């Protein structure tokens, strides 16, 4: 299935499921990446990682490895 890591810059996607566990999972859902949330990747850091995403009217930076744990539709 497609993950947030696969989403292209500027392409809106919708969160389907968060696969991470423990503190990481908690942090991801606490920051608002819950099922059904619309997310857009807005840019990649100059060195290729992490990425900056936009959701719920604010911006978040997340590592690519962690983005792979977020399944998305769209």
């Amino acid at each position: 299935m497609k993950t947030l890591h696969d989403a292209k810059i500027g392409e809106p996607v919708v969160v389907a499921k968060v696969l991470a566990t423990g503190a990481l999972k908690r942090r991801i859902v606490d920051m608002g990446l819950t099922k059904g949330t619309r997310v857009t990747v807005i840019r990649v850091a100059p060195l290729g990682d992490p990425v900056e995403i936009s959701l719920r009217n604010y911006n978040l930076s997340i590592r690519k490895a962690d983005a792979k744990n977020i399944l998305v539709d769209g």
Partner: protein
Amino acid sequence: MNKILALVGNPNCGKTTLFNTLTGSNQYVGNWPGVTVERKIGKLMNYEGYDVMDLPGVYSLSPYTPEEVVTRDYLLENHPGAVINILDASNLERNLYLTTQILEQGYPMVLALNMMDLVHKNGDDLDTQGLADALGCHAIEITASKGQGIKELLDVAIHASDGHVHLKPIRYSNVIEDTLVRIDEICNLPPEHDKRWHLVKIFERDPHELEKANLVPQLKEKLEALICWAEQKEGDDAESLIAAGRYAAIENLLRQYYKRGNKDQTSKISDAIDKVVTNRVLGLPIFFGIMWLMYFVSVSTVGQYTTDGMDAFFKNLGETLRAFLEGAAVSPILTGLAVDGIIGGVGAVLSFVPQIFMLFLFLSFLEDCGYMSRVAFLMDRIFRSFGLSGRSFIPMLIGTGCSVPAIMSARTIENDKDRKLTIMLTPFIPCNAKLPLFALFAAALFPANSWIGPSMYLFGIIMVIVSGFVLKKTRFFNTEAANFVMEMPAYHWPKLKSMWQHTWDRVKGFIIKAGTIIFVASAVLWLLQNFNLQLEMVKPDQSMMADIGRFIAPLFAPLGFGTWQTAFAAIGGFIAKEVIVSTFGILAGVTDPENGGTAMQAVVQSMFTPASGYAFMVFILLASPCIAAIATIRREMGSWRWTLAALGYQTGIAYVIAFVVYQIGSRF
């Protein structure tokens, strides 16, 4: 006892500004044992009988980050009179998430809606009364930085603290609400104000709550079956269900009470800035430019002039005092202690103050305007590969000037373990004070090799990388990558007042805490250098320090410099690294070590071979830093155990590496 109003809110929502407005200058900062995350308490201005507690900014009350633990534990255990939940009104969707959690704890609560000016500027409209009624608490619009709305806020908060609230926690789906009722039947919780909070936490399988519920195995199974049933029915795990439930309720509230205009100025401007400063091509050059400017201004120009000035001031002060004391026929012992010991030692430390001040003014600016998050964004890739945080770059850079402000600047690193590791490794970067030693040794022992001095930087950097890589694998520093899910706040122009407060808080902390330790340590070192065991004042070579030097000299023999003089000099390096060079001068009878260049070189040539000299340089580079830095490490680590562990690690590594250098070097 005073009633406490607890301030709770997300990071970057203006909480500290509100705290300063509420308390004026009547505040003190306290480190809590174990963690250095601060919570502050201050007397409420203009109202008798109330204190304000500033809790660390958090996004959630989950028990994972140190900030969350401090805030959560405080709320659960200390029962504040009322909670003031401050929110960034221009970012309510995420800010209200924390509110939904506090509502469940059932404390008298009021909402302080900050940054309403941004809401209006963006053409948005918030129905404050509607939102307040929906949540069952008062909501007051404030502008913390201008002191607007503060009186109203306090009036409703104080009214609320008398128990006049009927909170309406958000409701989850029917399946979850049913499950919560049945969890209550199983666990039979006491009917307290925070019952709903505990029920939700048990549903989330929060380990602390499950332990507290202390169920017999049979009930435990029943509970687990119940949670699994709900998870299956709703098609997700309990934690995700609760988080999604909270956000769904918030979306619902905002649909009713928040009308979006269509000119989102703040995020447009912010986006435009980010297009440049985090640009794939320009991002790094701009970052290095800013770092260079910060370094150039605070460490090498303004910092250096003022530091030299302070240095001269204390030398003058010392000499004036000496003349006065000698004139007054005070015993030479007391004169020496006061002038050489105390003024010398404390002065050496206080002369860092201008540098620290400048540096923190810069850092406060970068932090307050939002650029610090971008620093982490830009540098994360590099520093993560050897176990540090993207923000570790700043302490390392400042460390080339002085470890003291460098260690303090590590405060901007959010993750506690990354911060501790950075503090531990920053002193490996050679500071200004070590350069005269390196220059002297390079000139005396390696006149033909210009790379000897710069090789110290390379050595330091390699040690940081290797240590980071290795230590991160140990259980003390091993953290999940969780902490890099990081908010990128919108840029905003920092308020001068809060920058000043930020800077002054840190500088004051340095002067007071570091000053007291250094005051005592300078006096003790002076005694050791000038007295023998019978407490008679003697020449340095008969002092207790020389005895200690003779005692530990054999330890240094495998490193190639097992004489008491070098041991003496190395210990002198505790006071300040500059002292090492002058110690060699004094021991060799050079009266003016600063101008006795060739004489000094001859001393070094007589004591060291190239191999043992290089080993000595490496040892001084890596071993425990000076007292000022040690005191700062102690302050920033918040514990002696961590401080001693850091010093032990640094000195241990220094010993091993110097040993290897000497053993290999002496074969050529």
